[in-house]
């Protein structure tokens, strides 16, 4: 696979990789959401990823920017409470963060993720430590930037980001939620990871697997 250029086809594989990760783990996501939340996160993410897959196969332009905004719109169109807008805005931001270019270099990849994070920040005032998606996403994006600036190649950047996301998700285990439905039953979720953060981590893991997939 690519080392210093991410093209349309790779982006498609990354997106489908993310979808696959979520689909394989949706039951766990719902279970995590049942500790204090309403137990629907897995189902919603499943629907979001089906919408994502459909929009990916419908997209024909070959343009990464357009692909990502189609995906964003499709994910947002998932009627699922906070999930649609949160994850949708991340993809929407990714879209606005890339140029009309047909391939992205490693710096553009980091920038794309940063733009995604910024767009999501408009939706929520969540900070690290609030036990939300932010706990996985912020470190992942930061790590992608660090790795890119260090001169690593795209595959390595994606992998570092995914590791940071996983780390971040695991860190939510000992936190009490301060936002979202679960905050009203803060105690119940102690000892369990935040489902949204785990979703972020699965998505980044899927990006890596998709990107490295040579099939």
């Amino acid at each position, binding site marked *: 696979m690519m080392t210093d250029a991410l093209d349309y086809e790779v982006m498609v594989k990354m997106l489908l990789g993310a979808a696959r990760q979520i689909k394989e783990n949706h039951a766990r996501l719902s279970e995590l959401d049942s500790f204090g939340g309403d137990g*629907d996160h897995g189902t919603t993410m499943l629907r979001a990823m089906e919408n994502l897959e459909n929009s990916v196969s419908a997209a024909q332009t070959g343009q990464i920017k357009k692909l990502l905004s189609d995906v964003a*719109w499709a994910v*947002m*169109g998932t009627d699922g409470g*906070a999930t*649609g807008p949160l994850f949708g805005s991340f993809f929407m931001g990714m879209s606005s963060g890339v140029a009309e270019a047909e391939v992205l270099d490693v710096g553009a990849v980091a920038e794309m993720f940063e733009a995604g994070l910024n767009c999501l920040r408009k939706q929520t005032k969540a900070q690290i430590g609030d036990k939300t998606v932010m706990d996985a996403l912020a470190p992942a994006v930061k790590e992608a930037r660090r790795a890119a600036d260090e001169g690593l190649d795209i595959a390595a950047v994606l992998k570092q980001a995914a590791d940071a996301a996983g780390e971040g998700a695991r860190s939510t285990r000992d936190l009490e939620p301060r936002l979202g*439905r679960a905050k*009203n039953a803060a105690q119940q979720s102690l000892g369990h990871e935040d489902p949204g953060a785990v979703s972020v981590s699965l998505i980044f893991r899927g990006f890596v697997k998709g990107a490295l997939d040579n099939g």
Partner: protein
Amino acid sequence: MTMKKFINDPDDLVSELLSGFALAHADKIKLAGNNQVVRAKPKSRDKVALVTLGGSGHEPALSGYVGEGLLDISVPGEIFAAPGPPRLVEALRMADRPAGVLLIVLNHDGDVMSANMAMEMAEKEGLNVKQILTRDDISTGPRDKPEERRGLIGCLAVIKAAGAAAEQGASLDECCQIANRMERNMATLAVAVTSATHPSTGEAISEIPEKDMVIGMGQHGESGSAQTELATADKTAEIMLDMLIEDLSIQQGEDILLLINGVGSTTLMEQYIVLNSCKKILDSKKINMVRCTAGEFLTVQEMGGFQMFMARMDSELIKLWDAPCKCPCMAT
């Protein structure tokens, strides 16, 4: 425990319930676009339109409020989950008109995020939309932190007031002002005694000990602020009224609207008994319950319990409350 619900494939819950809803109330509402619930007879386009959005599973809310003197469009989401921005944008486009559109949003994260994104797009498209958040749950935050208060049944009073004003030809600004006045002067407190089953997962959405009730329980099984022993209707009414009166700083001699909203398996019989308890207590406190009602307007599946809603009323708000309306779940 086996779930004892009459459903088919859980994935089809919302589409099937909306079809049935449209059949049952064909004289008042119909489906349009992507499962948008609209009036059977649209209101004149020189009047302000009212739009709302919200998760399903709370029937008759919110689509049951579509009709004369109330909403123009309701955008129902999945079970307990707000619709995403695209369908809301679609609704705002359908509602768009020179008189303007008022978007009423219950303060829940998903709903607010969807609404904010949709508002952004609506602005880009040059639609004339204003938004109001309803934040009436006094159990989740103090009055001076409205952003922490969830939206409960209070949305109905805001929709009723703004809807009546719109029907009478009020401008978008006037509708907003009225909606805001209602919103600032209202408060809701919920109590739950038995859990509901999530119709998609089949799981109980909360656990309530056999001899307890939970004051402050949210609309989706979110835990409440206080778990106490079961009490009589009189005692429960007293506890809840005191909290609402204090929150709103209602004084002797003031006029209030009181609404008992059954959330599921608590019977109308009990709702009437609680309303009767409230009347006795309010009388003793010399607070005037100038209007009141009871019924199931916003449910949480088969949860046992109710929401008690109180609002400080002025003569204009009373007139708007009395104004004619006709929707699937009520008519005056």
